[in-house]
Protein backbone atom coordinates (compact mmCIF):
# COMPACT_ATOMS: atom_id res chain seq x y z
CA UNK A 1 0.00 0.00 0.00
CA UNK A 2 2.27 2.70 1.29
CA UNK A 3 4.80 2.49 -1.47
CA UNK A 4 7.12 5.30 -2.28
CA UNK A 5 5.65 7.82 -4.63
CA UNK A 6 6.77 6.94 -8.15
CA UNK A 7 7.72 10.49 -9.02
CA UNK A 8 10.78 11.51 -10.88
CA UNK A 9 13.11 13.93 -9.16
CA UNK A 10 12.28 16.97 -11.32
CA UNK A 11 8.57 16.54 -10.67
CA UNK A 12 9.23 16.21 -6.97
CA UNK A 13 11.15 19.46 -6.79
CA UNK A 14 8.65 21.36 -8.94
CA UNK A 15 6.49 22.98 -6.26
CA UNK A 16 9.51 23.85 -4.12
CA UNK A 17 11.25 25.43 -7.09
CA UNK A 18 8.09 27.33 -7.99
CA UNK A 19 7.79 28.60 -4.44
CA UNK A 20 11.42 29.71 -4.23
CA UNK A 21 11.14 31.38 -7.60
CA UNK A 22 8.05 33.30 -6.48
CA UNK A 23 9.89 34.41 -3.33
CA UNK A 24 12.82 35.96 -5.22
CA UNK A 25 12.86 39.77 -5.07
CA UNK A 26 12.76 39.96 -8.87
CA UNK A 27 9.63 37.80 -9.16
CA UNK A 28 7.97 39.61 -6.27
CA UNK A 29 8.66 42.98 -7.81
CA UNK A 30 7.38 41.83 -11.17
CA UNK A 31 4.22 40.14 -9.91
CA UNK A 32 3.36 42.82 -7.39
CA UNK A 33 3.87 45.70 -9.81
CA UNK A 34 0.31 45.49 -11.04
CA UNK A 35 -2.86 44.58 -9.26
CA UNK A 36 -3.79 42.03 -11.93
CA UNK A 37 -0.54 40.10 -11.63
CA UNK A 38 -0.66 40.27 -7.85
CA UNK A 39 -4.21 38.89 -7.63
CA UNK A 40 -4.39 36.68 -10.67
CA UNK A 41 -0.83 35.31 -10.93
CA UNK A 42 1.09 35.50 -7.67
CA UNK A 43 -1.72 34.52 -5.33
CA UNK A 44 -2.95 31.59 -7.50
CA UNK A 45 0.63 30.39 -8.07
CA UNK A 46 1.39 30.41 -4.34
CA UNK A 47 -1.79 28.42 -3.81
CA UNK A 48 -0.84 26.03 -6.60
CA UNK A 49 2.59 25.48 -5.02
CA UNK A 50 0.87 24.32 -1.82
CA UNK A 51 -1.60 22.18 -3.77
CA UNK A 52 1.13 20.45 -5.79
CA UNK A 53 3.37 20.00 -2.77
CA UNK A 54 0.54 18.19 -1.02
CA UNK A 55 0.20 15.85 -3.99
CA UNK A 56 3.87 14.90 -3.58
CA UNK A 57 3.22 13.45 -0.16
CA UNK A 58 2.74 9.68 -0.09
CA UNK A 59 -0.90 8.74 -0.45
CA UNK A 60 -0.85 7.35 3.07
CA UNK A 61 0.27 10.65 4.58
CA UNK A 62 -2.33 12.60 2.66
CA UNK A 63 -4.96 10.30 4.11
CA UNK A 64 -3.55 10.67 7.63
CA UNK A 65 -3.45 14.46 7.33
CA UNK A 66 -7.00 14.60 6.04
CA UNK A 67 -8.20 12.40 8.90
CA UNK A 68 -6.36 14.53 11.42
CA UNK A 69 -7.94 17.66 9.96
CA UNK A 70 -11.39 16.16 10.45
CA UNK A 71 -12.21 15.37 6.82
CA UNK A 72 -12.93 17.28 3.67
CA UNK A 73 -15.41 19.85 4.99
CA UNK A 74 -13.13 21.67 7.45
CA UNK A 75 -10.38 21.65 4.81
CA UNK A 76 -12.59 23.28 2.19
CA UNK A 77 -13.82 25.86 4.69
CA UNK A 78 -10.28 26.64 5.80
CA UNK A 79 -9.27 27.25 2.19
CA UNK A 80 -12.37 29.40 1.70
CA UNK A 81 -11.73 31.63 4.70
CA UNK A 82 -8.01 32.01 4.08
CA UNK A 83 -8.48 32.81 0.40
CA UNK A 84 -11.26 35.29 1.23
CA UNK A 85 -8.85 37.20 3.42
CA UNK A 86 -6.39 37.67 0.57
CA UNK A 87 -9.17 38.99 -1.64
CA UNK A 88 -9.54 42.04 0.62
CA UNK A 89 -8.02 45.11 -1.05
CA UNK A 90 -6.70 46.00 2.35
CA UNK A 91 -4.75 42.74 2.55
CA UNK A 92 -3.07 43.50 -0.78
CA UNK A 93 -2.03 46.93 0.44
CA UNK A 94 -0.76 45.44 3.68
CA UNK A 95 1.33 42.85 1.84
CA UNK A 96 3.04 45.65 -0.08
CA UNK A 97 3.54 47.99 2.85
CA UNK A 98 4.35 45.57 5.64
CA UNK A 99 6.96 42.77 5.33
CA UNK A 100 5.19 40.75 8.04
CA UNK A 101 1.98 40.72 6.01
CA UNK A 102 4.00 39.65 2.96
CA UNK A 103 5.45 36.72 4.91
CA UNK A 104 1.97 35.83 6.12
CA UNK A 105 0.80 35.79 2.51
CA UNK A 106 3.64 33.52 1.42
CA UNK A 107 2.90 31.07 4.23
CA UNK A 108 -0.88 31.14 4.41
CA UNK A 109 -1.66 30.75 0.71
CA UNK A 110 0.20 27.45 0.21
CA UNK A 111 -0.44 26.06 3.70
CA UNK A 112 -3.97 27.25 4.45
CA UNK A 113 -5.42 27.30 0.93
CA UNK A 114 -3.49 25.05 -1.47
CA UNK A 115 -2.73 22.21 0.92
CA UNK A 116 -6.19 21.75 2.48
CA UNK A 117 -7.81 22.04 -0.94
CA UNK A 118 -5.55 19.28 -2.30
CA UNK A 119 -6.31 17.10 0.72
CA UNK A 120 -10.04 17.54 0.42
CA UNK A 121 -10.44 17.52 -3.36
CA UNK A 122 -10.34 13.76 -3.96
CA UNK A 123 -12.85 13.12 -1.20
CA UNK A 124 -15.33 15.67 -2.43
CA UNK A 125 -18.48 14.53 -4.16
CA UNK A 126 -19.59 16.10 -7.42
CA UNK A 127 -21.77 18.44 -5.36
CA UNK A 128 -18.88 19.39 -3.10
CA UNK A 129 -16.71 20.20 -6.07
CA UNK A 130 -19.55 22.09 -7.66
CA UNK A 131 -19.83 24.16 -4.50
CA UNK A 132 -16.12 24.99 -4.52
CA UNK A 133 -16.17 25.92 -8.20
CA UNK A 134 -19.35 28.00 -8.17
CA UNK A 135 -18.27 29.72 -5.00
CA UNK A 136 -14.90 30.58 -6.49
CA UNK A 137 -16.33 31.71 -9.81
CA UNK A 138 -19.00 33.90 -8.25
CA UNK A 139 -16.50 35.42 -5.82
CA UNK A 140 -14.26 36.28 -8.75
CA UNK A 141 -17.10 37.80 -10.75
CA UNK A 142 -18.52 39.85 -7.88
CA UNK A 143 -15.12 41.13 -6.81
CA UNK A 144 -14.24 41.96 -10.40
CA UNK A 145 -17.47 43.86 -10.83
CA UNK A 146 -16.88 45.76 -7.60
CA UNK A 147 -13.43 46.79 -8.80
CA UNK A 148 -14.86 48.05 -12.08
CA UNK A 149 -17.78 49.87 -10.49
CA UNK A 150 -16.10 51.19 -7.35
CA UNK A 151 -16.18 54.98 -7.38
CA UNK A 152 -12.92 55.12 -5.45
CA UNK A 153 -9.52 53.58 -5.42
CA UNK A 154 -9.65 50.45 -3.25
CA UNK A 155 -5.88 49.98 -3.02
CA UNK A 156 -3.68 52.88 -2.04
CA UNK A 157 -0.72 51.11 -3.61
CA UNK A 158 -2.19 50.70 -7.08
CA UNK A 159 -3.27 53.16 -9.72
CA UNK A 160 -6.98 53.43 -10.29
CA UNK A 161 -6.75 52.23 -13.91
CA UNK A 162 -5.00 49.07 -12.67
CA UNK A 163 -7.96 48.44 -10.44
CA UNK A 164 -10.25 48.64 -13.44
CA UNK A 165 -8.14 46.36 -15.60
CA UNK A 166 -7.86 43.84 -12.75
CA UNK A 167 -11.64 44.00 -12.40
CA UNK A 168 -12.21 43.29 -16.09
CA UNK A 169 -9.69 40.45 -16.05
CA UNK A 170 -11.49 38.91 -13.08
CA UNK A 171 -14.87 39.14 -14.76
CA UNK A 172 -13.50 37.63 -17.98
CA UNK A 173 -11.78 34.87 -16.06
CA UNK A 174 -14.98 34.13 -14.15
CA UNK A 175 -16.95 33.82 -17.40
CA UNK A 176 -14.27 31.62 -18.91
CA UNK A 177 -14.09 29.37 -15.86
CA UNK A 178 -17.84 29.16 -15.69
CA UNK A 179 -18.14 27.83 -19.24
CA UNK A 180 -15.17 25.56 -18.75
CA UNK A 181 -16.79 24.11 -15.65
CA UNK A 182 -20.18 23.90 -17.32
CA UNK A 183 -18.61 22.11 -20.26
CA UNK A 184 -16.92 19.69 -17.90
CA UNK A 185 -20.26 18.96 -16.24
CA UNK A 186 -21.95 18.03 -19.48
CA UNK A 187 -19.09 16.43 -21.34
CA UNK A 188 -18.54 13.58 -18.91
CA UNK A 189 -15.10 12.07 -18.56
CA UNK A 190 -13.28 15.01 -20.06
CA UNK A 191 -10.01 15.82 -18.35
CA UNK A 192 -11.40 19.03 -16.91
CA UNK A 193 -11.11 20.19 -13.33
CA UNK A 194 -14.27 18.82 -11.68
CA UNK A 195 -13.72 15.40 -13.24
CA UNK A 196 -9.95 15.13 -13.30
CA UNK A 197 -9.60 14.33 -9.61
CA UNK A 198 -12.02 11.43 -9.92
CA UNK A 199 -10.28 10.13 -13.00
CA UNK A 200 -6.87 9.81 -11.42
CA UNK A 201 -7.84 9.05 -7.85
CA UNK A 202 -7.11 5.38 -8.36
CA UNK A 203 -3.36 5.69 -8.90
Amino acid at each position, binding site marked *: MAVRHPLSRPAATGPGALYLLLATPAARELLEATMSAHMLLQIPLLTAAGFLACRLLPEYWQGRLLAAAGGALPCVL*LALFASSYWML*PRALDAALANPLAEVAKFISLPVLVGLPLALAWRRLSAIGRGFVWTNFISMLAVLGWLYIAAPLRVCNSYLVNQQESAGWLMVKLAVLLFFWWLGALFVGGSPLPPESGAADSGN
Partner: protein
Amino acid sequence: MIPGKRSVAATALVVLAGAGMLWWGTDGFSAFTAETARRIEILRSPRALPATVLEDQDGRTFSLQDYHGRLLAVEFIYTRCTTLCRSMGMAFKQIRERVPQQVLGRDFALLSISFDPVRDDPASLKGYGQTYGADGTDWRIARVRNAAELKPLLEAFGIVVIADGMGGFEHNTAIHLIGRDGRLKQISDIDEPQAFADRIATWL
Protein backbone atom coordinates in the same frame (compact mmCIF):
# COMPACT_ATOMS: atom_id res chain seq x y z
CA MET B 1 -13.17 6.00 8.83
CA ILE B 2 -13.26 9.49 10.29
CA PRO B 3 -15.38 9.84 13.38
CA GLY B 4 -18.15 12.38 12.84
CA LYS B 5 -17.38 14.22 16.07
CA ARG B 6 -13.91 15.12 14.95
CA SER B 7 -15.24 16.50 11.69
CA VAL B 8 -17.88 18.58 13.44
CA ALA B 9 -15.39 19.94 15.95
CA ALA B 10 -12.85 20.78 13.24
CA THR B 11 -15.54 22.45 11.13
CA ALA B 12 -16.72 24.54 14.05
CA LEU B 13 -13.14 25.50 14.88
CA VAL B 14 -12.39 26.53 11.30
CA VAL B 15 -15.58 28.57 11.01
CA LEU B 16 -14.95 30.33 14.32
CA ALA B 17 -11.29 31.00 13.61
CA GLY B 18 -12.01 32.01 10.01
CA ALA B 19 -14.82 34.38 10.90
CA GLY B 20 -12.71 35.77 13.75
CA MET B 21 -9.81 36.37 11.42
CA LEU B 22 -11.99 38.16 8.86
CA TRP B 23 -13.57 40.19 11.69
CA TRP B 24 -10.14 41.18 12.94
CA GLY B 25 -8.83 41.81 9.43
CA THR B 26 -11.65 44.20 8.56
CA ASP B 27 -12.12 45.98 11.90
CA GLY B 28 -15.45 44.28 12.48
CA PHE B 29 -16.45 44.09 8.81
CA SER B 30 -16.24 47.85 8.52
CA ALA B 31 -12.87 48.45 6.83
CA PHE B 32 -12.21 46.53 3.63
CA THR B 33 -9.68 48.98 2.25
CA ALA B 34 -6.46 50.32 3.73
CA GLU B 35 -7.90 53.83 3.44
CA THR B 36 -10.89 53.09 5.69
CA ALA B 37 -8.64 51.19 8.08
CA ARG B 38 -6.37 54.23 8.36
CA ARG B 39 -9.29 56.44 9.28
CA ILE B 40 -10.66 54.04 11.87
CA GLU B 41 -7.26 53.63 13.46
CA ILE B 42 -6.78 57.39 13.80
CA LEU B 43 -10.20 57.80 15.39
CA ARG B 44 -9.35 55.07 17.84
CA SER B 45 -5.91 56.35 18.70
CA PRO B 46 -4.93 59.87 17.61
CA ARG B 47 -1.37 59.81 16.35
CA ALA B 48 1.64 61.98 17.23
CA LEU B 49 3.32 63.56 14.20
CA PRO B 50 7.00 64.13 13.41
CA ALA B 51 8.54 67.59 13.86
CA THR B 52 9.18 67.95 10.14
CA VAL B 53 10.67 71.26 9.02
CA LEU B 54 8.34 72.79 6.44
CA GLU B 55 8.83 75.72 4.10
CA ASP B 56 5.87 77.78 2.97
CA GLN B 57 5.10 79.70 -0.23
CA ASP B 58 7.06 82.70 1.03
CA GLY B 59 10.10 80.66 2.04
CA ARG B 60 9.34 80.85 5.77
CA THR B 61 10.17 77.72 7.74
CA PHE B 62 7.93 76.26 10.42
CA SER B 63 6.74 72.91 11.75
CA LEU B 64 3.41 71.27 12.53
CA GLN B 65 4.21 71.78 16.21
CA ASP B 66 4.01 75.55 15.70
CA TYR B 67 0.25 75.07 15.42
CA HIS B 68 0.01 73.66 18.94
CA GLY B 69 -3.11 74.93 20.67
CA ARG B 70 -4.98 75.42 17.39
CA LEU B 71 -6.98 73.11 15.17
CA LEU B 72 -5.27 72.48 11.86
CA ALA B 73 -6.66 71.00 8.64
CA VAL B 74 -4.00 69.37 6.46
CA GLU B 75 -4.17 68.18 2.86
CA PHE B 76 -1.45 66.62 0.70
CA ILE B 77 -1.04 67.85 -2.86
CA TYR B 78 1.35 68.49 -5.72
CA THR B 79 0.84 71.70 -7.59
CA ARG B 80 0.83 70.28 -11.13
CA CYS B 81 -2.03 67.97 -10.19
CA THR B 82 -5.07 68.52 -12.36
CA THR B 83 -7.49 65.96 -10.95
CA LEU B 84 -7.96 65.09 -7.29
CA CYS B 85 -5.95 68.00 -5.89
CA ARG B 86 -8.27 70.37 -7.70
CA SER B 87 -11.27 69.02 -5.82
CA MET B 88 -9.19 69.06 -2.67
CA GLY B 89 -8.20 72.67 -3.25
CA MET B 90 -11.88 73.51 -3.80
CA ALA B 91 -12.84 71.64 -0.64
CA PHE B 92 -10.29 73.61 1.37
CA LYS B 93 -11.51 76.84 -0.18
CA GLN B 94 -15.06 76.02 0.89
CA ILE B 95 -13.99 75.07 4.40
CA ARG B 96 -12.12 78.32 4.70
CA GLU B 97 -15.20 80.24 3.63
CA ARG B 98 -17.60 78.35 5.87
CA VAL B 99 -15.87 78.23 9.25
CA PRO B 100 -16.58 81.18 11.58
CA GLN B 101 -14.34 83.88 10.11
CA GLN B 102 -13.19 85.35 13.43
CA VAL B 103 -11.39 82.12 14.39
CA LEU B 104 -9.40 81.81 11.17
CA GLY B 105 -5.72 81.86 11.98
CA ARG B 106 -6.37 82.26 15.72
CA ASP B 107 -8.02 78.96 16.57
CA PHE B 108 -8.14 77.20 13.23
CA ALA B 109 -5.75 77.12 10.29
CA LEU B 110 -5.35 75.31 6.99
CA LEU B 111 -2.20 73.81 5.53
CA SER B 112 -1.54 72.22 2.14
CA ILE B 113 1.63 70.14 2.01
CA SER B 114 3.24 69.19 -1.29
CA PHE B 115 4.69 65.71 -1.59
CA ASP B 116 6.76 66.75 -4.61
CA PRO B 117 9.28 69.08 -2.93
CA VAL B 118 11.74 68.88 -5.82
CA ARG B 119 9.47 70.46 -8.40
CA ASP B 120 7.19 72.42 -6.08
CA ASP B 121 9.35 75.41 -5.22
CA PRO B 122 7.91 78.32 -3.23
CA ALA B 123 6.86 80.01 -6.48
CA SER B 124 4.71 77.06 -7.57
CA LEU B 125 3.32 76.76 -4.06
CA LYS B 126 2.35 80.39 -4.20
CA GLY B 127 0.67 79.90 -7.55
CA TYR B 128 -1.33 76.99 -6.20
CA GLY B 129 -2.40 79.04 -3.19
CA GLN B 130 -3.51 81.94 -5.38
CA THR B 131 -5.62 79.62 -7.51
CA TYR B 132 -7.74 78.73 -4.50
CA GLY B 133 -7.56 82.00 -2.63
CA ALA B 134 -5.17 80.89 0.10
CA ASP B 135 -3.88 83.96 1.94
CA GLY B 136 -0.55 82.48 2.92
CA THR B 137 -1.16 82.98 6.63
CA ASP B 138 -4.35 81.29 7.75
CA TRP B 139 -3.95 78.92 4.86
CA ARG B 140 -0.38 78.16 3.91
CA ILE B 141 1.00 76.02 1.11
CA ALA B 142 4.20 74.25 2.07
CA ARG B 143 6.75 71.61 1.19
CA VAL B 144 9.28 69.75 3.33
CA ARG B 145 12.58 71.60 3.63
CA ASN B 146 14.62 68.42 3.58
CA ALA B 147 13.41 65.82 1.09
CA ALA B 148 14.57 63.01 3.41
CA GLU B 149 11.91 64.06 5.90
CA LEU B 150 9.09 63.52 3.43
CA LYS B 151 8.77 59.76 3.79
CA PRO B 152 8.40 59.71 7.60
CA LEU B 153 5.88 62.54 7.36
CA LEU B 154 3.76 60.73 4.74
CA GLU B 155 3.98 57.50 6.71
CA ALA B 156 2.80 59.19 9.88
CA PHE B 157 -0.24 60.49 8.02
CA GLY B 158 -0.75 57.26 6.07
CA ILE B 159 -0.41 58.90 2.66
CA VAL B 160 0.69 56.63 -0.18
CA VAL B 161 2.00 58.39 -3.29
CA ILE B 162 2.74 56.47 -6.48
CA ALA B 163 3.96 57.78 -9.81
CA ASP B 164 1.31 57.45 -12.52
CA GLY B 165 3.88 56.99 -15.29
CA MET B 166 2.92 60.25 -16.98
CA GLY B 167 4.90 62.58 -14.79
CA GLY B 168 2.14 62.89 -12.21
CA PHE B 169 1.13 61.03 -9.08
CA GLU B 170 -1.79 59.13 -7.67
CA HIS B 171 -2.37 59.45 -3.97
CA ASN B 172 -5.05 58.95 -1.37
CA THR B 173 -6.91 62.17 -0.75
CA ALA B 174 -8.54 63.26 2.45
CA ILE B 175 -8.80 66.11 4.89
CA HIS B 176 -6.68 65.52 7.97
CA LEU B 177 -7.58 67.26 11.19
CA ILE B 178 -4.87 67.83 13.77
CA GLY B 179 -6.11 68.55 17.26
CA ARG B 180 -4.91 71.21 19.67
CA ASP B 181 -2.61 68.64 21.23
CA GLY B 182 -0.79 68.25 17.91
CA ARG B 183 -2.11 64.76 17.24
CA LEU B 184 -3.78 63.63 14.05
CA LYS B 185 -7.31 63.01 15.30
CA GLN B 186 -9.62 62.67 12.32
CA ILE B 187 -9.49 61.92 8.60
CA SER B 188 -12.49 62.76 6.44
CA ASP B 189 -13.57 62.70 2.82
CA ILE B 190 -13.02 65.76 0.71
CA ASP B 191 -16.54 65.78 -0.68
CA GLU B 192 -18.17 67.03 2.51
CA PRO B 193 -16.56 70.41 3.24
CA GLN B 194 -19.75 71.72 4.83
CA ALA B 195 -19.91 68.87 7.34
CA PHE B 196 -16.25 69.40 8.12
CA ALA B 197 -16.72 73.14 8.67
CA ASP B 198 -19.69 72.39 10.94
CA ARG B 199 -17.62 69.99 13.01
CA ILE B 200 -14.86 72.58 13.35
CA ALA B 201 -17.41 75.11 14.55
CA THR B 202 -18.59 72.76 17.30
CA TRP B 203 -15.04 72.20 18.51
CA LEU B 204 -14.07 75.83 18.73
